[in-house]
């Protein structure tokens, strides 16, 4: 049986699923309920000098029938007094000694950092997470992402905290920066025990086109928010990969960003995450999703023969190269499995308008199944991505698998295009239609009589 026990720089939890510091961790009530449901840890809603919030606070990006594919908020850190939060931390830890309770913190001065560290440690927190990520409301006051965007400042504050820390210190990073490894390295240099990423991305989630105000609307006005949810997962995973692959970032990472099921969690762990944090999915579906996450992760590990999370942590990193190290001799082409094709012709129009005109239609309108023109196919995957039928379009290998030649190797050999009209241009001998053919509207470009 798979063992999900997680240890992030000494912060232990029965599984790697933690609630991220956010509205679901606003109170002891919510966190106890979450632990009872099966969550392994929780990062408390950020503590500091309590704020005053606005109404409303959230906006969403819906995609067709999918609600909250992206989610944006303008809520700030906790608006509850510190003493109430501390009392509740203590209570939760008493009831759930084996679960991870991490206090997220955001204050300004060295004295405040020292004081609050002492307070949360006394309350029994297993660790702290320094919120250097919040991109709205707090950054204007020189906190949150204002710190995360200045590696020097970040390093200084981490070192202040570490002066008094007796529990592990996680540094939470903002994605609102061009190179995530710079603040990550600063966290290492400041003595941080771990990093967590990503916090939310600065965003305008939508605009009310009748009132001319972005969402969420506060008395006819709005402000930029912090964006999260499934839509940000690819951005989060890339930043996770950048940190996990960097030799200087040699501390554990807690992954955050759009995780809502076991599969997402596995992907984050394969890219080097030790624990994963979840917020939007819980705000959407409640704590109950943890059942699917734990069960799925266990089953995956059992099927793969992984006994612990360490057995597969970072396993995908070795396969992520620079583009110049990819094999230029590898050749795949699309293959339409006619028995599965339903004739929507989305692949045809996608390839025709969005790719390389490598799919044709049959002249006999009754047979709507398109065909691949192999010599035009560059193996880009687009048709297989737009196809609505599972397994209908697959990409088939056409090279012999024996040749290996990368851009880097070609560069070393001098075998690369160097001038604008170089004979070595990759697409030089690839067929493209005549421009004026675009206006020949009678029939699709490629027609095969049948």
């Amino acid at each position, binding site marked *: 049986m798979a063992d999900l026990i997680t240890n992030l720089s000494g912060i232990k939890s029965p599984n790697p699923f933690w609630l991220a510091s956010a509205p679901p961790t606003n109170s002891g009530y919510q966190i106890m309920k979450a632990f009872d449901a099966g969550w392994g840890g929780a990062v408390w809603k950020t503590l500091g000098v309590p704020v005053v919030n606005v109404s409303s606070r959230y906006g969403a990006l819906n995609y067709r029938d999918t609600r909250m594919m992206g989610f944006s908020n303008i809520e700030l850190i906790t608006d509850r007094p510190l003493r109430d939060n501390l009392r509740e931390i203590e209570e939760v830890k008493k009831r759930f000694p084996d679960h991870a309770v991490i206090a997220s913190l955001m204050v300004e001065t060295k004295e405040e950092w020292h004081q609050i560290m002492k307070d949360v440690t006394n309350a029994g927190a297993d660790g702290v997470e320094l919120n250097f990520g919040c991109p709205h409301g707090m950054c204007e006051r020189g906190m949150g992402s204002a710190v995360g965007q200045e590696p020097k400042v970040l390093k200084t504050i981490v070192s202040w905290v570490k002066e008094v820390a007796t529990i592990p210190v996680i540094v939470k990073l903002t994605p609102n920066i061009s190179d995530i490894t710079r603040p990550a390295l600063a966290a290492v240099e400041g003595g941080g025990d771990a990093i967590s990423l990503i916090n939310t991305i600065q965003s305008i989630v939508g605009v009310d086109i009748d009132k001319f105000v972005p969402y969420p609307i506060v008395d006819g006005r709005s402000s930029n928010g912090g964006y999260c949810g499934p839509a940000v997962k690819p951005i989060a995973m890339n930043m996770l990969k950048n940190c996990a692959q960097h030799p200087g970032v040699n501390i554990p990472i807690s992954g955050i960003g759009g995780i809502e099921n076991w599969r997402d969690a596995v992907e984050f762990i394969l890219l080097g995450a030790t624990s994963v944090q979840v917020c939007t999915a819980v705000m959407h579906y409640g704590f109950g999703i943890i059942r699917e996450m734990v069960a799925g992760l266990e089953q995956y590990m059992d099927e793969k023969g992984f006994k612990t999370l360490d057995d597969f942590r970072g396993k995908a990193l070795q396969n992520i190269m620079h583009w110049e190290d990819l094999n230029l001799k590898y050749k795949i082409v699309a293959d339409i499995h006619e028995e599965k*094709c339903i*004739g*929507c*012709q*989305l692949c045809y129009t996608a390839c025709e308008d969005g790719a390389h005109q490598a799919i044709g239609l049959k002249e006999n309108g009754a047979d*709507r199944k398109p065909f691949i023109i192999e010599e035009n196919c560059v193996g880009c995957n687009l048709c297989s991505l737009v196809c609505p039928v599972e397994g209908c379009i697959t990409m088939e290998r056409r090279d012999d698998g024996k040749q290996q030649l990368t851009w880097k190797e070609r560069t070393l050999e001098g075998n690369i295009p160097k001038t604008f009209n170089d004979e070595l241009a990759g697409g030089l001998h690839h067929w493209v239609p005549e421009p004026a053919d675009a206006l020949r509207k009678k029939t699709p470009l490629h027609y095969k009589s049948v």
Partner: protein
Amino acid sequence: MSEYKKPQSEKDFSKNFAQIKPLMSDTEAYYESSRCLFCYDAPCVNACPTGIDIPLFIRQINSKNEMGAAKTIYDSNFLGHACGKVCPTEVLCEGACVYNNTDVKPIEIGRLQSFATGKAIRTNRKFYLPGKSNGKKVAVIGAGPAGISCACELRMMGFDVDVFEAKEKPSGLTVHGVAPYKITNEEALAEMKYLQDQFGFHITYCKSIQSKEDLSTLENNYDAIFIGIGLGKTSDLKIKGEELENVIGAVEFAEQLRTKHHQVNVPQKVVVLGGGNTAMDAASEAARMGAEVILAYRRTKEEMPAYDFEYELAKSVGAKGLFNVTPVEIIGENGKVSGIKLKSTSDGNEFIENCNWVIKATGQSKQIDLLRLAGISLDEKGRIAVNEEFQTSNKKYFAAGDAVSGGQEVVNAVANGKKAAWGIKEFLK
């Protein structure tokens, strides 16, 4: 045993005749429109006789542009709302949906269409203005789908149009003949009013064009005449007992039902003769009126011309099929039907099926007299012969709808009525 209780009130009637394609809510339309794949060269469009750009209007619904969706529909089909409700979508657009080729339910195109157009009608959102007058006048005989579609298109082109309708309401079969569970009178009439408001054609009701004089008047006052008179009464079976009280034609039954609702007194046991869609409608309707219904057809179930889904619908409300039987004689007691003698077409045996009503759904007669007066040639089946522009042998007359097709869907009448308008324009150029 019938599954429906005889309706005693308007409320009972609406319950028994609940719409089989009820209007969608905003939420339902949003989710349903999300499923559309936006196929290239979409098969649903090709399957629509009026060629509505279905993927476009569904995408417009999904982006909350319902008025844009309604305009897309009306640009191709002036009876977009009625067609969304009464079209046999199962064999047209929805039957062509590529989802049928896998195990996914096809998009409910008809209901989405009625959703968008219904909003336009309810908010009286107008998309069209009549064209600048070209000084020419066209008379339209019959305010059914073909006539109204023709009238709208003619008005767009700048013709003056007067419509002459024999009955007291417009819509033709949409109000007088279609099964009540497909569309309500209110819905059909609201669309008519909506169109009349926009296009400004004039309708004279209760004006039947019958005599040579009527025709001469029209010929003298109008540059062209469009005929959209549909079909006539139910044809005679020419068997003994046909004259008995309680032997009724399916079209006449439907019309009674659509106007009098629960006040139509359908007796306990009804035999419907026929195997077409009209027979299926009659069987469904009688069953919903609380009767025990036998559907008697002279050939096999497989040979019935009715759409499968129409037979399934009739069966689902309790009608029972009786195949390979032909009527020999209708038997009466005291001038009323007491049974029907049927003969097996396989072994020739005769037997009597007791019943209180016989509904004949064995075809309608053609309204030949008027057409002869107008000097219009008919084909061998008594239908009006037209050329590709829907012009008859008498060049001044154009025609479309059931009088030309012999009995098709509302959507075909709409499509062809519009094409006839183009023919008229060409003729009067």
